[in-house]
Every structure is written in structure tokens, then in C-alpha cells.
């Protein structure tokens, strides 16, 4: 009891040291990325990342770091660890350091006006990556480099048409949908895009019989799919909002004694490595890519913005769709 205070201090110290260790790890990346490059005054880019919550995100971070190094820019990298206040203070830091361009993936949609106005007052252009923000003043950011989630939903529906044709499926199609985290933009928009195509072209033959969130995780996908198979044993197609849920669902389908990719056709979004592995084994029928490797495109835009060229308001990430026969070929090239 006597040394409770001392101990608490020590405990906080330990926790802080852990935090520092994490920071140090982060710094290694940014310090290496600032070396190398062409002569003259290097362009400085301040980049604030959401955090490192998934494999997709780490691939995104690596891509930004690598392409900044390649382009010869000085990169100030900061990890917001999923917190808006960290991100705001990082952006303030970039403004104080007078970087040439600020880029960031906003943690949340709202609450950016004040800090973006500070950047505008100092004439530092802001580029959003991956996710968008809601703001009263559209001039606060120059452009968004990122995926069009609604279009990913539409592409998923279009590729499903091909999958059905290839499988020789005729007549009514009963679809089960595994949604992402409730309220997350990718979940809402992927469902919206898919439904758009369905309502337009397949009003009579396609039907989503069950739809439920699997929280973008394997465990979630597996558990929800197990329940789906119980309540609707005659599902023809599974549309999963990401690969991980699809992989979980595959295990549930196998446990129920059915063949994923044959008895139940599966279309997923993302294109992570494990998804491609499953597709090359014939368990996923098609994958709609959501590309995290937007570093090169971002650097291109940063250069244009710095040179004062006008750019589009939304620069969409270059993405492709993959059918099963392309899986083996594409697998070795998947970086994440």
C-alpha cells in the first residue's frame, strides 16, 4: 500500500516506454524514406496515416513510404493510431514545419474544418487519401486519391453475372451478403452499389435472401455464414464485403458439407493475398480489387499540386477484377 504511488509511476513509465518503442519503429521507416533522391531542394510531404489496423492498411503505408522514397521526396510520416486528435496534432505539426504538401487518411468523416483552415491560411495544399471528409468549404482540400466503394459494389454485381454464366447457373439466384462493420463507408457503399445493379438489371431473378454484418473479420464471417446455412440451406451465391469474411465463410460452408466455389458461388472484395490463395484453390469465384497501393498515384498528384496544376476532385485508384482462371497467375504478384 505504501508504495502504491511509486508503483503507479513505474507502471505508467513502462506503458510509456512501450509507446516509445512503437514510435521508434515508426521512425525507422520515415528516416530511411527521407534519404536518397535527386539534387536541389527536396519536396517535403507530410503524411498522417489512420493507424495499422489491418493488413490492407500496412500495405497502404508501405506503398506510400516506398513511392515517396522513389520519387525523392522528404516524407514526414505520422501514425494517428485511430485517433482524430492525434491526426489533428500531426497536421498542426506539419503546418509548423512548413511542409510543401499535406496528405492524410482521415480517421473519421467530420471535424476537420478548423485544422484545414489553418493549413489553407499558410497556403499548404491538402490531399486526402483513401477516405473522404465532410466539410462546409470544398476549397479546404485539393483532391481525394482513393477507391470508389460504390463502384466496387457495382463491379461485384457485374462480375457475378460472369461467374453465374460460367457456372451455367440458370433461373433464380439466392444471394447471401456478408456486410462489413455497420456504419463504415465501405460497407454501406459496397452494399449500395451491388443493389443498384441488381435493381436495374436483375430485379426478377436475383434476390438477397439474407444479409448480416461480419465485422470485416474471419471469425465474424464464419459464424454468420454458419447461421445463414442453417436458416437458408439453399443459398446459391455469397457476396462478402471483404476477403477475410469470405475466407471465414468458406470454412463454415465446408463444415456444413458443401463445396465453396461450386455449391455456393463466392464473390469478394479487396484482393488480399489469402483471398487469392483461396481463389487459386477454387474456393472463391471472383475478387473485386480494392487497391491499397496508391502511393505512386499519390506522389504524381502531390507533384502536380506543388507545380500548381489543376487536378480532378477525386482521383480513383487503379483497380482490376479477377476471375478464378487469373488467380494462379496473379498470386505471386500480390504484395499484401
Amino acid at each position: 500500500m505504501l508504495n502504491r504511488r511509486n508503483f503507479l509511476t513505474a507502471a505508467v513509465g513502462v506503458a510509456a516506454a512501450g509507446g516509445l518503442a512503437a514510435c521508434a519503429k515508426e521512425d525507422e521507416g520515415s528516416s530511411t524514406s527521407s534519404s536518397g533522391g535527386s539534387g536541389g531542394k527536396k519536396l517535403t510531404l507530410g503524411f498522417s496515416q489512420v493507424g495499422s489496423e489491418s493488413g490492407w492498411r500496412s500495405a497502404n503505408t508501405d506503398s506510400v513510404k516506398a513511392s515517396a522514397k522513389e520519387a525523392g521526396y522528404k516524407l514526414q510520416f505520422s501514425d494517428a493510431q485511430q485517433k482524430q486528435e492525434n491526426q489533428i496534432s500531426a497536421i498542426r505539426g506539419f503546418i509548423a514545419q512548413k511542409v510543401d504538401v499535406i496528405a492524410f487518411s482521415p480517421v473519421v468523416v467530420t471535424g476537420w474544418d478548423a485544422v484545414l483552415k489553418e493549413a489553407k491560411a499558410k497556403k499548404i495544399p491538402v490531399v486526402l487519401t483513401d477516405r473522404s471528409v465532410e466539410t462546409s468549404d470544398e476549397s479546404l482540400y485539393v483532391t481525394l486519391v482513393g477507391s470508389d466503394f460504390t463502384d466496387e459494389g457495382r463491379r461485384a454485381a457485374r462480375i457475378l453475372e460472369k461467374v453465374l454464366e460460367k457456372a451455367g447457373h440458370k433461373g433464380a439466384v439466392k444471394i447471401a451478403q456478408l456486410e462489413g462493420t455497420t456504419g463504415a463507408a465501405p460497407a454501406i457503399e459496397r452494399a449500395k452499389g451491388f443493389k443498384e445493379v441488381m435493381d436495374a438489371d436483375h430485379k426478377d431473378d436475383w434476390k438477397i435472401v439474407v444479409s448480416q454484418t461480419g465485422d470485416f473479420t474471419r471469425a465474424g464471417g464464419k459464424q454468420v455464414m454458419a447461421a445463414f446455412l442453417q436458416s437458408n440451406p439453399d443459398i446459391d451465391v455469397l457476396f462478402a464485403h471483404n476477403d477475410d469474411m469470405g475466407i471465414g465463410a468458406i470454412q463454415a460452408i465446408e463444415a456444413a458439407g458443401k463445396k465453396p466455389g461450386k455449391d455456393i458461388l463466392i464473390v469478394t472484395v479487396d484482393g488480399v493475398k489469402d483471398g487469392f490463395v483461396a481463389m487459386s484453390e477454387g474456393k472463391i469465384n471472383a475478387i473485386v480489387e480494392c487497391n491499397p497501393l496508391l502511393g505512386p498515384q499519390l506522389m504524381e498528384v502531390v507533384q502536380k499540386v506543388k507545380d500548381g496544376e489543376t487536378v480532378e476532385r477525386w482521383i480513383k485508384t487503379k483497380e482490376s477484377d479477377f476471375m478464378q482462371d487469373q488467380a494462379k497467375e496473379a498470386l505471386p504478384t500480390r504484395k499484401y
Partner: protein
Amino acid sequence: MTTTPRWRALTHHNLFWPVVVLVVLLLVNVPFTPDFFSIRMTNGHLHGSLVSIVLFGSPLILVAVGMTLVIATGGIDLSVGAVVAITGALTCSYISDQSDQSALSGVFFAIGIGLLAAVVCGLWNGFLVARMGIQPIIATLIIMVAGRGVAQLVTDGQIITINSEPYKLIGGGYWLTLPFSIFVVAAVVAVTVVLTRKTALGLLVESVGGNAEASRLVGIRSRRIKIMVYVFCALCAGIAGLMISSNTSAADGNNAGLWIELDAILAVVIGGTSLLGGRFSIGGTVIGALVIQTLTTTIYTIGVPTQTNLVFKAAVVIVVCLLQSPKFRAKAFGGRFGNKPGAKGGTGQPAVAPAQTAKTTEAAPKMEVS
């Protein structure tokens, strides 16, 4: 309606309401899925909703059983979710480094490493709570926050996929046509019940929870008991971590066991254990965990729209907690179910002084409602 003594004894049994809720929840599924209770053989193992509920609920039961003992000492362990993540991450990353992932020796060694890490976490929690006198909620918060970071450090922020048949058995495999995890859970629950009810250990845990200082003065080593329950709780969480990672053959440092601590506390409360400590019911906790898992499965099978999932869950939880409160029952149903609040107490006899017993039983309903 006349109340026969047998009926009264039944309704006043501490497991009566949790079991009623469980049965009602199961029956709700029938109109939506007529063959909800059917179990059939598929590929040489049993398959059906009931099997799924036990399979997917196994990790929660384990974590909740460990949590029960911690709560019985008047503590709480928020770090179990992080321990789940650390154990899964360490074990899977070790297995994934092996050239032959299915080699039994490698798998056992990996499991050993994972469980050892869990025990270390438990020792740390117990040390902070029992030796340093830090509030349990704060002490275990440290690993809850930092532990997930450690798990991500181990997995490098990636999801580690493994391909190991022996490891898959723990959480996703079948033995004697039943999910293997059922046997693991049964073993852990049996050992816990025997240790706490056939030896004096349960009594000691309850007495520490009732009044740690008084227990120490009568010669019980309160601190040692506390450290023991935190280690046991972490070990249970560790086994749950093995199960969760084995179930999907992957370690996800970010999502494995996320918020499982809250579900576990809820399971303990539904099972009739007082958050104030001093009494506990392992059987109640198992039923509580099954109620939560059945609720989740029910949401999926009856097709509650995604956006209203949590509202539906909240409504059921509120009803369950209210039914658990003798005071509420007395008000709502009159004397039939509700009189003599807490008359039966836990399955174990309260081991503390009469004044203390009165205090815990009187305060318990309040905690359960909140």
C-alpha cells in the same frame, strides 16, 4: 394460482431464470428456422444450430468461467480480450515459422509458449492487484490496452494464416462426431467445479471476495488466492485464444477476442454471480455464456436487420437482467417469484460473517440490474 413448495424451490433456484431465458431464446428460432433443433451427420460429424452455438460459444464460456472466479474475489479482469489476442498471435506465429506445420512437437511447443504468455499476463495482473493494491479495473486495463499492441507487434499487423491439422483440432476440429472444443470446455469446467466445490478453494475465494482483510486475519492467504484467480482467468483466456485462432486457422491481433471481456462479464452477471464478490456460480456462468451465444445466433438466423442488431441485443439483455433481479420480480409479478430476495444465494454457502452476507445479497440485485 397455488404455489407448491416444489414449484417455489424451482423458481427460486439461482439457475431458474437464466435457463428460462435460454430456452425461450432457442424457441424463438423455431418459427423462422423450422429445423432449428435438427442435428444431422455431415462428413462424419454432427452439424446443426445447437452444435454451432456450443462450438462458437466455447471461447466465451472459457473466458467467462475464469472471469467468474476473479469477480468472486471482488475483482474484475478487463485484460482477457488482449490475452486471447496475444496467445493466438504467439502460437500461430511460432507454428507458421515451422517447416512442417503439422508436426505434433512443434504444435505442442507453440501451445506451450502461448499459454505461458497468458500465465505471465495473469501473474502481472495478480501482482498489481494483490501485491500493489491497485484497483483491479485499472490494473487489468494496462494489459487490455497494451496487450493488443503486443499482439500486433507479434503478427506485424498482419493476419497470420497457418495450415496445421493438429492445431485446427482445438477450435475447429471434431472428435467422436462432436466439436473438440466441447471436450476442452467440459474438462476446464469440470476441473474448476471440482477444485472450487470439492476442496476448500471455492470457500476461500468467496471469503476473500466477501472481505479480504477479515479473511487474512483468520489466516487465509488472501493475496495468494487473488494472484491465483488472476492467473487462472488468464489461463482460461489463453485457451480461448488458442480456440479462436484455431477455429479460423489464423491469428488476427487486431480483432481476436475484441470486446470478449464485456461479453464475459455479462455472462457472469446473467449467471447470477454478484459483481461485489463473495459468491459465485460456475453453472450459472456457463448458462449465461450460452444465452449470449444463442442471442447472437438468433440475430443471424431470424434476420434482424444489421442496423438494429445492437438494439435487439440490448433489449434482450435488459429483460434478462431485470428477470434476474428479485426486487423487480417482486414488483412485476407480485409475491409469486419475487419474495425473499437472494434467499438461496449462490450454489456455495456464503462463507462470510452474517452481516457481510446480508450486505452482499441485498446489494447484489442492484448490481445485476445496472
